[in-house]
């Protein structure tokens, strides 16, 4: 029971994140949803680390937080540039790669 609660929480967070990435049009919200996904992964890592009595998961979680911060920085920079060019931050407008 102890582990399942954490895993359920992580799964719910993951699903909310995926929903946000797929359904939301706002690029900032998409970025936030990606943060949710990353944090659900962090919860998973910490859960299994606790269960196995090792600190590897904690180390990974710390790394992921650092990388996520950098990623958000890059992502917000992109959003800013897109807004400057398009006057919109809707991801549906960014369909130049359409085949």
């Amino acid at each position, binding site marked *: 029971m102890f582990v399942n609660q954490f895993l359920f929480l992580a799964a719910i967070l993951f699903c909310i994140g995926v929903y946000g990435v*797929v359904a939301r049009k706002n690029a900032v919200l998409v970025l936030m949803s990606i943060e949710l996904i990353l944090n659900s992964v962090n919860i998973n890592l910490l859960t299994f680390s606790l269960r196995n009595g090792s600190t590897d998961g904690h180390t990974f979680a710390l790394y992921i937080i650092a990388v996520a911060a950098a990623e958000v920085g890059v992502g917000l920079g992109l959003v800013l540039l897109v807004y400057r060019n398009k006057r919109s931050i809707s*991801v549906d407008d960014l369909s130049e790669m359409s085949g």
Partner: protein
Amino acid sequence: MLFAEQVLTPLSSGWFLENAWLIPVIPGIAFAMIILIGKRMPMKGSELGVISMLAALVLSVGAGYQWIQRVNSASEEQFVSPVIKSWTWWQSGGFEFGIGQHIDGLSVLVLLVVALISTLVQIYSLEYLRGDRRYTHFFAALTLFSGGMLTMVLADNMLLLLLGWEIMGLCSFLLIGHWWEEDVNSKAALKAFLTVRVGDVGLLVGIIMLYFTANDWTREHLGVSGFSIRGLSAWALSGEPNSTVIMIAAIALFIACIGKSGQFPLHTWLPDAMAGPTPVSSLLHSSTMVVAGVFLVARLYPVFFVGLDILGDGGNLIMIIGGITIVISAALAFVQDDIKRVLAYSTVSQLGYMMLGLGAGAWMPAVFHIFTHAFFKACLFLAAGSISHSASHHSFDMKRDMGGLRKVMPITFTTWIISTLALTGVFPFSGFFSKDEIIDNVGNNGYGLFMIIGLIGAFLTAAYMTRATYLTFFGAPRGASAGQSVNDVHDHAAHSPVAHGPHESGALITVPLIILATLALGSGFLNATPFGESWERMKLWVEPRSEVVVEGIAVASESVVVSKNYSPQSEEGHASSVCGSQTPETGVCYAPKLNHAPFKWPKAMISLMIVFLGMAISWVVSFRLYTKRDPKFVGLTQRVSVLRAGHKLLVNKYYLDDLYEKVIVRGIAYPIARTAYWFDQKVLDGIIHAVARSARLVSGWVYRNIDQRIVDGAVNNSASATKYVGGVVQPTQSGKVSQYGALLFSAAAVAALVLVIINT
């Protein structure tokens, strides 16, 4: 070994003998130079030919002189070993082919004759062929021709001999067909070449047989290969060879001699070879080419001696062929109108004498006849050429264009008469000393029938030569000789403006004639048996002595001891000979012991009487027939049926040409050609057509089914499939990030599901 101490005299040698191999090399180099730079030389290359021949002559004279010294340095019955030099030509597997010289009396004699006559003929040709369109090539071929003969003469092994032999065959083709623009000439050249080739097969077979049977013996005993002439001579007389094998080999070699020396039944090419320029006929018929066959028999005499049982009972192949040739060709000479053809048949007949002599064990007289015959026959041909050049507008027809020429051409006439007397064998001209000796020795060795054939031949020779002489030089001038202008069919020799009308030829023609006539008159005295032993110089110098030789030390055989006191009448001289009739117990023999007939004047008188009788009868008949037009004689061959049949037979040359061309060539070659054509048309073409047709069918099917359907279909279908798939998948490339994300996550979910299912 008893007499070893008496014969250990060292033999003298000298530069000319040691370096005799240069003699054929010089004409060879001259040939190459004439071909390469001859046309740019001031005399169009002819000077190179003449100079090379003169050089060869000088070297030959030197070699002859030193050979005589060598013979004189030997003791009386010692075998004078030949000067042999040998190098390896090329090697192949276990076979080693040598190249080198074998100089003995026979080589030196023939070298001298060839070099001398070639020189004179080349000088003669300077005038005779002046202005010819292929002047340079003529001299090139003439020089190479002499070079071939010289190579053959001093070859130390059979392969080198074969090389010289074939060079001559090629050059005779080139020279006989020199004026190939006329169909007759090129046909004659082909005929000469092909007829001789028929015989050459025999030469190859003989050489190969001798090599494989003799090689082991010669390697073991003499350390030379089975091609070596010295080795083969010793092997033949060693008692080693199987009599059947050596007989077949000797017959094979003799077939080559028949072809080359124009013996019956392959003599037919020789008269046709008259199509060549006269100097060529002269060279071809006197000292080179036709003499090659006789020379081969004389050179490998031990092989023929043992193989064909010379001196055995009854006749042998060489004698029979020689005897037949003498008579049939002499008879043919009577029906020829062409002066050169008369001489050609005369050559064939004289070669028959040489063969008869060799076959009957009369080696020395036969070889001596090569020597004397070369001079007078060369002289006769050159005289005939002189007549046609200066008197008869290049016609050789005695009946139409000659007659009464003795007054306008005194030098030609005199040389002709001297040579004719030499040819017919009148004392003291050279032919007497050689031909009479042959006839005499044939009789002395117990072949009475062949002696009579020889005498008949002498009678016929005297008669046809008298007829030719009468028609040419006596009676009234006819045709061109009478100054009648005829259309000059030969435009090959440019005339100087004064050359029209019969006149004596220039110095370049008469000087060779005079030299040759002098030799025809005098050369007989080199071996004049009638004057006793001391006159028989040629026998001393040339004839190899039958002595048993051991490892370089000569051991006088028993026979030699006997022959010291040898008197021709005594019986035991022949019986106790070792070489030839018995196997030598120690050492080897190089020459069989031969007898020499003692000269007797009564016998010589008989043959002289026969000759004079022949001349007289022929003279009377010719006079009555050609000058008086006596009705008893004119048309005799038409009126009397026996004579008519004989005349017809002779005019048609015994139908031998018909036999060869119509029966043998048609009978053998035509069916072969027809069968080959049929095979080609039906079988080969059928196969090819069938293959082609099936290939066409198969390729059509392949085109339609494999290429069009499978290969093209695969390409086209894959392209359209790609297009279709592309069309189907295209909507996924919407460019909408959220859609991509949805796809990504659903794919990840599917992958996770699969992972879970696999792991449980």
